[in-house]
Each structure stands twice: as C-alpha cells, then as structure tokens.
C-alpha cells in the first residue's frame, strides 16, 4: 500500500494535467457551440417569445446580410488575405443599385447586375493592389475601403438616394421596382428571401472550401504559399479568385440590404465590416477548425444575431450591444488561440 501511495504522487499530478488538457480540448472543439446552446436555452426560459418560429426568422433575417458578407471575408482569409473593403463594398453597392433605379429609372434586374459589377470592380482593385502591386493585404484593402466609401459619396453628391428626391431641380424619375423590393422584403414559403440567399451561399461556400480542388488550393496557399507554388498551384490566380468571391458576396449583401432599406443611405454598409470580420473570426473557434471555414462563419453570424436579439428582448440597452459583441469576439479568439495550445 505504501508503495502505491508514493507512486500516486507524480501519477496524480500528471493525470490531473492530462485531465486539464482533455477539458481544454473539449472546450476548444465544442466550447462555442456549447455557449450558443446555453444562450438559446436561457433566452427561451426568460422570454417565451424568443423560442418561436417567427422570432427565429427575425434572428435569421437580421444576420443574413452580415452572414453573407462574412462568408466572403472568410474566403478572402483562406489564402492568408483579408478583405477589409467588404463593408465599403456593401455601401457602394447600396448606392449604385439605388442610383440605377431612382436616378436613371432602369429596371431592378439592371440594378442587380450593376451591383454585382460594382462588387467585381472592388475585387479587381483589391487584386490589382495585392497580387499585382504586392501591397500587403491588410493595408491594400484598407485603401480600397476608403476609395469606395468615398466614391459612393461622390457619385451621390454626399446625399442619400431616395425615391422622389430632387435631382437638378426636378424630382428623380424612378423608384425601387417591386421585383427588387421583393429581394429584401419577400418570402419563399414563409422564409424571407435574404435568409434563403444566405443559406444557399453558405452551402455553396462550404462545398467550395471543403470539397473542391479550388478550395483545397486556397487553403494550401493560406497554409504555405511557397509549398503551394512548388506543388504547381497558380497562387496569383487563386488569390484573385478569393477576392472575387469576397467582392461578389459583399455585392449580394449590398443588393439585399438596398432592397430592404428601399433607399440608398449614405454609410449603410459601414457597420458590416466589423461584424462580418467578427463572425468569421468567431468561426475559427467552431469545432476546432482554427482556420477560416464556412460552417464556423455561419455559427459566428448566428451567435451575434442570437445575442443581439435576446438582449433586445431582455430590454438591454442597444448601446451595450457593441461591448457584448466585443466580449464574444475576445472569448472566441482566446478559444482558438489559447485553448488549442493547452489541449
């Protein structure tokens, strides 16, 4: 017996350390999902109206635009890049679609095309700066952010674009078409259109990143660009692809936002950059992925939506939301960077 007692000393410490690392491993993989479930349960218990189908649709509706932008940012991150211009792109697309219909009296379909082209234009500038001019991604897309935020102000003379606004002394000729407005306010089998689009894009990006050779190449570049190049991957092309996907996602988000607002608000896209980056970064911590991934980004976006919705129902002041989002992001970052090392 004495022998076992003396032996238990080191064994006990090492086994407790092992246990700690097991706990960290579980927290690393499932921690964030666990917190999300706890939040859902707590909100449901405190406010029965929270756990209803209409409210679920409200939550989804509220995260759809952020989620779509975040999916694009996620793709831009896979190659080791970072699209800071996504929010500005959303804003520019809102203005362009509004101008197309209100100022130039063109159809909703034209507005959609113009919006998508705007997204590709933003992507082209990003590619020119990062891939061709070899400016570091973070500062290059910061520059693009300012460029397109400013450009949206210039083309509209610094004013919001709303139906009936005065242009050169006369009322603007056009208005938002019904079809275009449907993109923001319509439903498909009771589900809001933006939510359907978000779901479709999420599935597409998931398949792209996890099940196609293009996704594999994107991740290879993010993991080790030189190894990717020597393995025969055209690095420049894939980095351009990543920004193109990001630009298109931001454009789609901008179109949906414009349709929902029914007008081109100056600065409408501004809040979307930080929220989408937060969603993508929170996604790193989901299921221990530790890299940008579509599923994690969707969870990250939902996380933010659920938290804001629940807090609003609990009558928490709106101005506390930013702080809570920050706390959430910090928690997720600690999960993905610190717990991984312990586990």
């Amino acid at each position: 017996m004495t022998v076992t007692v003396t032996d238990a000393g080191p064994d006990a410490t090492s086994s407790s350390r092992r246990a700690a690392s097991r706990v960290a491993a579980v927290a690393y993989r499932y921690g964030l999902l666990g917190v999300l479930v706890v939040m859902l349960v707590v909100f449901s218990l405190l406010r029965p109206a929270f756990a209803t189908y209409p409210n679920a649709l409200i939550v989804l509706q509220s995260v759809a635009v952020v989620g779509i932008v975040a999916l694009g940012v996620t793709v831009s991150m896979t190659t080791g890049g970072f699209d800071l211009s996504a929010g500005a792109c959303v804003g520019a697309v809102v203005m362009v679609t509004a101008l197309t219909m209100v100022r130039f009296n063109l159809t909703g379909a034209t507005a959609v095309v113009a919006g998508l082209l705007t997204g590709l234009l933003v992507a082209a500038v990003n590619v020119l700066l990062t891939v061709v001019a070899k400016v570091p991604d973070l500062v290059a897309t910061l520059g693009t952010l300012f460029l397109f935020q400013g450009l949206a102000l210039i083309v509209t003379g610094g004013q919001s674009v709303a139906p009936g606004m005065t242009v050169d002394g006369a009322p603007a000729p056009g208005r938002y078409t019904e079809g275009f407005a449907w993109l923001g306010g319509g439903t498909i089998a009771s589900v809001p259109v933006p939510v359907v689009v978000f779901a479709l894009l999420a599935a597409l990006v998931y398949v792209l990143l996890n099940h196609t050779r293009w996704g594999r190449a994107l991740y290879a570049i993010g993991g080790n660009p030189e190894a990717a190049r020597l393995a025969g991957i055209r690095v420049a092309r894939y980095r351009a692809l990543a920004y193109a996907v990001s630009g298109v996602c931001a454009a789609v988000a901008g179109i949906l936002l414009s349709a929902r607002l029914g007008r081109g608000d100056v600065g409408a896209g501004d809040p979307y950059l930080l929220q989408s980056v937060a969603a993508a970064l929170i996604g790193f911590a989901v299921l221990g992925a530790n890299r940008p991934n579509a599923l994690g980004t969707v969870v990250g976006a939902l996380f933010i939506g659920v938290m804001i919705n629940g807090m609003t129902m609990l009558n928490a002041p709106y101005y506390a939301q930013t702080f809570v989002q920050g706390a959430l992001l910090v928690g997720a970052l600690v999960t993905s960077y610190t717990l991984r090392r312990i586990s």
Partner: protein
Amino acid sequence: MTFAVTSVSKVYGATRALSSITLELRPGEIVGLIGTNGAGKSTLIKILSGATAPTSGTLSYEGRPLAFAGPLDAQAAGVQTVHQNIDDGVVPGASVAENLTLDSPAGRGWFVTRARVRAAASSVAPGLALPLDAPVESLPASARQQIVIARALARRARLLILDEPTSTLSEVEATALAAQVKEAASQGVAVLYVSHRLSEIETLCDRVAVLRDGELVATFTAPLSREPIVTAMLGPLTAPPTTPPTAPPTAPPTAPPTAPPTATRGATPTAPPGAVAGVASFRDAPAGEGLAGGREVLVAEGVRAVARGRAFGLRVRAGAVLGVTGLVGAGKSELLEQLGGARPLLSGRLLLDGEPYRPKDPRAAIGRGVVFAPEERAAQAIVPGWSVRAHVTLPWLRRHSRSGLLTRRSETAAARHVIDLFGVRGPGHDAPIEALSGGNQQKVVLGRWLAGDPRLLVLDEPFRGVDVAARADIGRVVRDRARESAVVVATSDPQELRGLADRVLVLYEGSAVGELPIAEATPERLAALMSGTPPQRPAAPMSGTPPQRPAALMSGTPPDHLAAPASEHLPEPPHEGSA
C-alpha cells in the same frame, strides 16, 4: 589571452551535436571553422556566443573558466558574434552613424544630436570610410556588413565570431571584408571565421578546424590547401553510407541486386572508366545499363547555376540518375530550381525529350512531366496541419476530382500507394503530417511526385534530415523509379550518391567543374573537384603540417593525428601573438 574550448560536448535529446571539441582561439589569429550541414558549426557558435550551454566541457579565457548564462554574458566577456543575416544587425531607416552607435546613441547625456552621433560614430569606427549621414539601406551589403563588424569590434571584442559573413556578398565585396577582418586580427582580436567558401578560408585563415558529425576531425595550419580540407569534411567516402545492416531489403524480390549491398562499395582509384565498382545497395541493374541505354530526357546547353558562374551543359538519360554535388553555396539548389521551373532560367536553353523546355513556373514544369522536390521540407513542401493524404494529392487535385468535387476514395488510394511504396511508418494517411518522423515526412513529400509518372524527377537534398532507415527506403524507390524516368539528385554529401547515381556533376562556387561516372568518382577526385582544385594538378604537398598525404586520407578514417584535438599537436601559427 587565449580562449580555450576544452572537451565541449552538446547533446540534444538523442542527438549528439558536438562530441568533445577542444580548440584554442588565440589573439591575432584567424581560425576558420568549416564543415558540412549538420556538422556542428552552429552548435559550437551558439556555445561560444552564450546562446546555449554545453552539456559537458568548459570554456575558458586565460585559464579562467567562463560560464555564460546568456548572450549578454558572452558579450561582456568579449565574445562578439556577427550572424549570417546582415540585415539582422542594422536598423533600416537609420543613418550609418546611427547604426554604428546603436549601443550608446549619444555617449553620455539625454539628448541625441546629429553632431554627437557623428562624433560617437567616428570613435566607433575611426578607419571606416563610409558616408555617416547616408541611410543604411542605401549602402551595399558589404558596407552594411562592415558596420555590423565595426560595432562588434567597438564592444571591446577579444573574440570575434563571423558566421558565414560572405554568404550574401559578391567576390569583390568579400575581399573588402577580408581586409577588415585582417585589420581586426592585427589589433589582437581572435577571430573565428565560419564559411563555406574555401577560397576565402585558404587566403584568410591561419588555421582551419574541420568539423564532421559533431567531431573535430582535423585542423590544418597555414599555408592551407583546399583538397585535404574537403577530404576531411566529407569523411571517408568508402564507408558504408546509406544502408544500415538493419535496413529492409533494398531491392524488390523479383530483381535481386547484382551485388550484395556492401561488397562492391567503395570505388578504388584504379577502377577503369565505366566499371561497376561503385554499384551498391539501391541498384537492381548494373550501372552500365543506365549509362548506355535510354534516350536523352533532358539536354541543357549554356545553363548557369548562378549568374556569376560559368555556363555549362548537361545531359540526363532515361534510366539514369545524375548526381549533382558540391559544397554548400556551390549553386546546386539554384540549378535544380531552374530545371524544375521554380526560378527562371538564367541562360542557355533546355530540351526535354528533344522539345524546347522553358518552364515559367513549377506548374508548367509539372505539365511537361518534370517534377521538383525542394530542399527545405518545412518551408517549401509542408502545409502545416494537413494530413498525409492531402500532401500526397496536392499537386494532382484535378485528377482526384469528379465533376468539380474531390473524391475521398481516390485521394485515399493515392496516399495508400505512396505509403506502401515507400514503407511510410506512422499513424496513417488521415493523420497530420507532423505526426510522422522527419524521414517519413520526406517519403510523403517525395512520394507524391511519383504519382504523376514524371519524365524527369528533380530532387534537391532528398536525404536531408532523414534517418538511415528512411534513406534506404527513399534510395530504393528512387533507384527503382529511375528505370523509367530520368532523375537528378542534388546533395552536398557525395556519400549519398554512392549506389544511387550513375554520374556525378560537381559544382564549385557556381560553376560546373567536372562530370564523371560514379565509378570514377573516387574520394580524392571528388574532394579535388569540390574544393575547386584544377584536376590536372596533384594535391600540393603542404609545408608545416605532416599529415597531408592524400593516400593517408583516402584510405578510410583519417589518421589519428588528424582526429586528435589539434591544438596540442600542431605547431603554432606562423606569426606571433599567442600567449
């Protein structure tokens, strides 16, 4: 006034990086330190500069023992180290004067003024003819190097360690550096000069210490000649190099080796051209077959390894392995990267199966059936966290896709194939590649290239950081593969080419200096070529030290008096200055 290293050993885990090194560094003397990759040079420098402590043995200065808790201790004791990367030692954006005075920007006082900085800079480097107000990045590399060295000397250096100071310098710049080093030595500083460039060692050093596998195998005293130095660096080429007795069978059972693995190894100097004396373990066909048969897969005309090298040509036949060897910095990687499309062709032209071949990137090379496995596994081949399977299929993703989607089954099959072919040992294809040992990781990143049925395999240092058992596995598969493809293998250790290559191309400081059949690649010929000694001239006998008879060196292990801690046996350097 002498720094003494006495019986210093360093053990990392199971690896013995240094075994019982004894070396004296005397004031005014420039001692060269030379050895191949992994010989222990860096470890010795780290110990001397206080970055790591020896496992056993002592350092002393004038008989007083030194114990360094860290680099600052070593600096306080007068040991100044200038590291290989020059730009680690200068602050970009600051002026020359500011860089010279980093240790005490304005002497005493609170405020830094330009005048005070200039005055301080002049006192740091009185003899340095550099524009003090110029931004440091506007200077050539050699001038930046001079600044770093001047600063090191100004810290009251007693021992100056220069770690490959010329690796990024041109030849002219290196000459300027040599003058500065000689000047320092004449002031009574002991200099330890680490370099791969033999010409510099030869002209600059009073004494040369040669490390091999963590042991001090020889020291030579000036006048120096390159050939014996290289012979000592490379070691006995006749020893069994690649196949340990415990290695798995080295050839498939259907094609037994024509010779037992070690019986015919060790070409003798008298072997006639084309003889099969060099045949060894990896071979399942006589060497002559590779030489005679097979179409010319790759013909290179007027190519260069590096811009300053001379142009040369080379030919690689199907069914043959061309070994490329040379010391570190000879331009092997640069040459292979051009063949593999990883860097643009410097000059000349390439023909692949008779067709012009000028790949603009690795992808273009792969498209033409040329695959290139780079030298640095971690930096150039491994994607952190990825599975073995994903590493195997990365170059061939299109093949594993069906209607745009990757098929797991096809990827798994490819990974299993590589695992079986090379005998990869580890937790399987789904595990992250980091879970494998270095040798098994190497099998994976080499093995993936065979999946493409390449016409030409270009392998840069395939045995780097690989244990002996894995070496045997890799050598066997490469040799087997060479029955269908042409293979180019670069290595700075010619032992690895024994039994693998049919011909050996030797590079020296960027130029091709010889190509010969493996049977003629005798230790002394390789040593002569690798050290840049003209082939006609027999090794010049060296005055001052008795042991330089080549016959003594080539016969296997170096004579005892070479392997012994040299400072006790060798005469003093020709000039005075020792205590």
